[in-house]
Each structure stands twice: as C-alpha cells, then as structure tokens.
C-alpha cells in the first residue's frame, strides 16, 4: 500500500487532505501522552497556564513505552487504547491539536470535535511496539518524569506507519471496514 507522506506540525490543509483508509507515513515531532498526562494537560488549560508543548498543529501519540535498553532510543512503543482519552480530546482539539495516534474506538463527541476543529485520528498497529520503535529516532521527556511511562515526551519519528481511521469529513474506517467484511452466518 503506497503511503502518503506527511510532516508535523499539521495544517488544516494537511488534515483536510486525509481520508479514512489512507495509509500515512508521519515524519517530524509527535508528543507522547496518555491517561495521567492528559488529566494534567486539561487541568493546565482550565487554570489558564502554559502547556509543556505547543498544541497548535500538534500530533499526540497515545503511548507509554517500555524502558529503553542501553543504546536504544526508546523501548517498545505501540499505541494504547484511545477511548480512555476521549474525555480530554475535544478540549485539546479546541486548543489546536490536529492529530491523534492510538488504537480503538472514539466517541461521537470526539468525532464531532474532529469535524469542527479539522483534526484527524490515526491508528497505529497495536501490539507491534518492537516494530514501531524502529521509526522513533529521538526521545526526550519534557514534562512530569515522575509519571514514568505516562510522562510527556517529545518524540522524533521518521516514516511512522499509521492508517487514517477518522477523518475531518466524517469518514470512519472502523465502521466502513467492518461493514465491508461482515457476513451472515
């Protein structure tokens, strides 16, 4: 499958160009953040305080890596279930977040926010953390190191393989793919 190449940060135009089912290779910076980090990010926004990274145009990767072995950039680094971040994602999109990488279903609220704010949801292959780690070439923890695997890190990725699940036009690969292959038994 020929992949579309995109570079972060993403513009509205970049996002509009992506359709559910597109294979995409991401290059640039993505920010690692999962449950505990999202709770803190949203608290900072509510308090009107600055975030540890620029949210405008950013892509967040829902991921908590295993520890890096000596000499490696990062440990295994596949996506975690995105649904746990659904409570926080719309607010982050309203503050400029353009892309989310994870795996699994999103709520209608999140999909609506993607449409309103021109944002995109990508799936990376869950359980392929050893393979995906090979596409991460830089890794620096930038906030809340005490959270361990749940800290926020600035990750530099090169040709990171994902597939568009939810685009900003209402396309949904989870629904479309499933309908296409469902059978009556």
């Amino acid at each position, binding site marked *: *499958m020929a992949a579309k190449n995109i570079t972060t940060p993403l513009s509205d135009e970049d996002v509009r160009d992506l359709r559910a089912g597109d294979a995409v290779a991401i290059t640039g910076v993505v920010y690692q953040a999962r449950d505990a980090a999202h709770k803190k990010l949203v608290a900072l926004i509510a308090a009107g305080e600055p975030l540890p990274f620029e949210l405008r145009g950013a892509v967040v990767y829902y991921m908590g890596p295993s520890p890096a072995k000596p000499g490696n950039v990062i440990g295994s680094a596949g996506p975690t279930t995105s649904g746990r971040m659904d409570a926080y994602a719309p607010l982050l999109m309203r503050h400029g977040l353009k892309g989310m990488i994870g795996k699994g279903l999103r709520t209608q609220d999140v999909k609506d926010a993607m449409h309103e704010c021109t944002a995109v949801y990508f799936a990376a292959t869950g359980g*392929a*953390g050893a393979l995906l780690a090979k596409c991460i070439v830089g890794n620096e923890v930038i906030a809340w190191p005490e959270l361990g695997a749940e800290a926020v890190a600035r990750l530099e990725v090169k040709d990171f393989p994902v597939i568009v699940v939810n685009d900003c036009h209402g396309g949904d690969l*989870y629904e479309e*793919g499933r309908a296409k*292959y469902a059978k009556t*038994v």
Partner: protein
Amino acid sequence: MGQVRDLDVCAVTEAVKAMCITANYDLPADVYDALVKAKEAEESPVGKEVLDQLVENADIAAADRVPICQDTGFAVIFAQVGQDVHLVGGPFDDAVNEGVRRGYGDGYLRKSIAEEPAHARRNTTDNTPAILHTSIVPGDKVRLTMMAKGGGAENMSSLNMLKPSQGWDGMVEAVVDTVSRAGSNPCPPVIVGVGIGGTIDTVTVLAKKALLRDVGSAHPDPRIAGMEAELLEKINALGIGPQGLGGSTTALAVFIEEMPCHIASMPMAVNVQCHAQRHKTVEL
C-alpha cells in the same frame, strides 16, 4: 505417597524472573504460526498488511530481545504446588513477587501497576503485586505458569450472570456481543477465553485459564470443541478484522472451560486476550 521434597523458594524467584522476561520477548510458536496462517487466509488487503506487521514485530522482539508489546502486562501467575513439596527459605508469595520485581526490572519491561486505584493511582514502580492463583496438587513438583496480561484487552472482558433457561443460544449471544462491542479496542485478532459455571469469582479464573491452551488445539470433549468452532465462525463473521480495520480474522481461537454451578445459575465469563498471547510454564 512420596517423600517430602525440600524446595528453596529462591528457585521460584529465579524461575518467575526468567519467565517474565522470555514470555514478553518470545511469542509462543502456536500463536506465531496462527498469525502466519491467518495472513494467508485474510480477505482484506489492509488486514493482511497488519498481520504481516505482527509477524515481523514478533521476529524483531525475539531477535533484539525487546518486548513484543510495550504493555508488558500484569504478571498473572498460576502455581500448582505438589503436596509433597516443602517450601523453604521464606514465604512463597514473597518469592513470586521478588521474581516479578527482578524480571520487570532486569528485562526492561514496563511497570504498569497502580496502587490505590480509587484515588492516588500511584505506580508501584516494580510491577508488583503479581496476581497469584495457587492450588495444591498431588506430587512433589511445583508447576508455575506466567501470563503477561495487557490492560487493553482485559478491559473488554465481561461477566454474564445468565439464566439457565437462556441455554447455549444465550451464551453464544453474550460471547459474540462481548467481542462485537470491543471492536478494535482489544487489538484483534483476539483469543477468547470463556468460562462457564462456578461462581462469579471462579468463572473468571476459569476463563483466564482457558486462554492458556495452545491455539489450534481442540477441546477433548467433542461437544465443547463444536461449541468453540461455532463461536469462532460467528466472531469472524463480524467483519471487525485485524486491528478492527475490517477483515475476516477477528479471532484466532475460542477456548471454553466449564465447571459445575448452582442450580439457579449460569455464570459465564469472557476473558478477551490480544494477539500477543504471552505465557510460559516451568516445572521445579
């Protein structure tokens, strides 16, 4: 009745440590072969590509000695302790937890256990405590099985207190519904462990034990083997496919175990397992 055999719990610690590491680096051959086979049979091109990535990922993990998945899981330990074994050198449970501590530390595995889950959710930083199921069995050996159980698939599991009148049709509906609602969340293709009978506590353990069977193995009871085949066909007809992106491979296997239950009850637990079905067994 054999002689009582002394076994130093240091051996338990060492064995648990080694299993935590190898279980997380080396995908069992039965699961690996099932992924390769599924890749051939998968109808969706995207699904084929996902399965290809999973096989390549298992190869990289084994060669580079890194975890198959960053979620190296809760350490679930099944211990069958022979009644002619005398454990010496310290408490057995402590020895198991020390093995988990060392395995997750030395193996560069992720520490994923939060204490005080209702409020502080503080990481215990060493992946303890293990979930330990101990049973006393005949003999003078200790058999230990370690399963690395990830959170994403565990979250999609279900407990169903059915009515006996719902029968097999009710059970089919509950299993298929659990997998259907889970969709892409538990990292399909999944392995589905089904426990039937017992009480709410024992039926969930039964479902988890069912996951330890080899993918491709048939249940010795042909009636249950038939039920497993029927469920697998219905689940794969859902169209969820590898990673939920659409396709004909939603599950690699369905395993059922049953035990007696109360005349008023029909408990059924469905333990969902991702494709990275990581487990190891040793005998001491």
